[in-house]
């Protein structure tokens, strides 16, 4: 079997109220919409595109963070890697536009029955959160776009994590 982008790649824009391209202003975190990964995705690449900030700030950056939750409308917490470090980073947006990529494995495999680490992979719902930071400038703003790029598994959906037996 040949793999090809049309059949073997899942692309999901990270939207905010269904709008994909965001103009980040101020300093507050902008929460992306929840993305349900229970559709048979095996692994994900996060892609974040950040343009050069407008408004001539003397410094500008966008911090991105991956958050997760067991329910769509629940309280999202930082998705952490195997060291306990929050998955995310800061992107300099003062002088150059940038494309940032990050690997996310273990989709739907977080063991929610555990109360201590190691938990394993990710919870069912993921979202990308972007936070701009500016120094000076006149109404500085940064255009951004983020997306989940997934690869499907073997066609079988993973069981949804519940507190009862999946068997």
């Amino acid at each position, binding site marked *: 079997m040949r793999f090809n982008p049309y059949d073997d790649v899942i692309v999901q824009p990270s939207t905010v109220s269904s709008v994909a391209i965001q103009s980040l202003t101020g300093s507050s975190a902008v929460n992306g919409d929840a993305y349900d990964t229970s559709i048979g995705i095996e692994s994900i690449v996060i892609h974040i595109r950040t343009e050069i900030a407008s408004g001539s700030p003397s410094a500008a950056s966008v911090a991105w963070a991956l958050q997760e939750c067991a329910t769509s409308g629940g309280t999202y917490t930082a998705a952490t890697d195997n060291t*306990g470090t929050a*998955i995310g980073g*800061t992107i300099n947006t003062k002088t150059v536009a940038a494309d*940032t*990529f990050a690997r996310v494995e273990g989709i739907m495999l977080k063991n929610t029955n555990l109360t201590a680490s190691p938990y394993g992979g990710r919870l069912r719902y993921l979202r990308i959160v972007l936070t701009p930071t500016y120094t000076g400038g006149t109404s500085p703003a940064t255009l951004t776009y983020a997306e989940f790029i997934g690869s499907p598994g073997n066609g079988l959906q993973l069981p949804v994590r519940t507190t009862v037996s999946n068997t």
Partner: protein
Amino acid sequence: MSDETNVEAGSETSGETAAVDTAQVDTTSTDTSATETAPADTDASADAGGAADETSVKVGDSCVCPDGRTGTVHSYDEGFVCIPNVDQG
């Protein structure tokens, strides 16, 4: 992704410009979210993946991620989280 950088087994972050962050993003297996993250310039501490448990932590403070990278404290729905910085120098 021509300049992909493998950080450790099963994890990578890559970028197409020099400004792209090189955060480690391994999520393949274990998760040690209980590890403490101590802001570098305060006595307070914050869970890397959770809310700060000290009132002296504030947005913009420097912090150290559990993997040793320097970061900056950001505020989210869950509370304060240490996000790795671009410049680790």
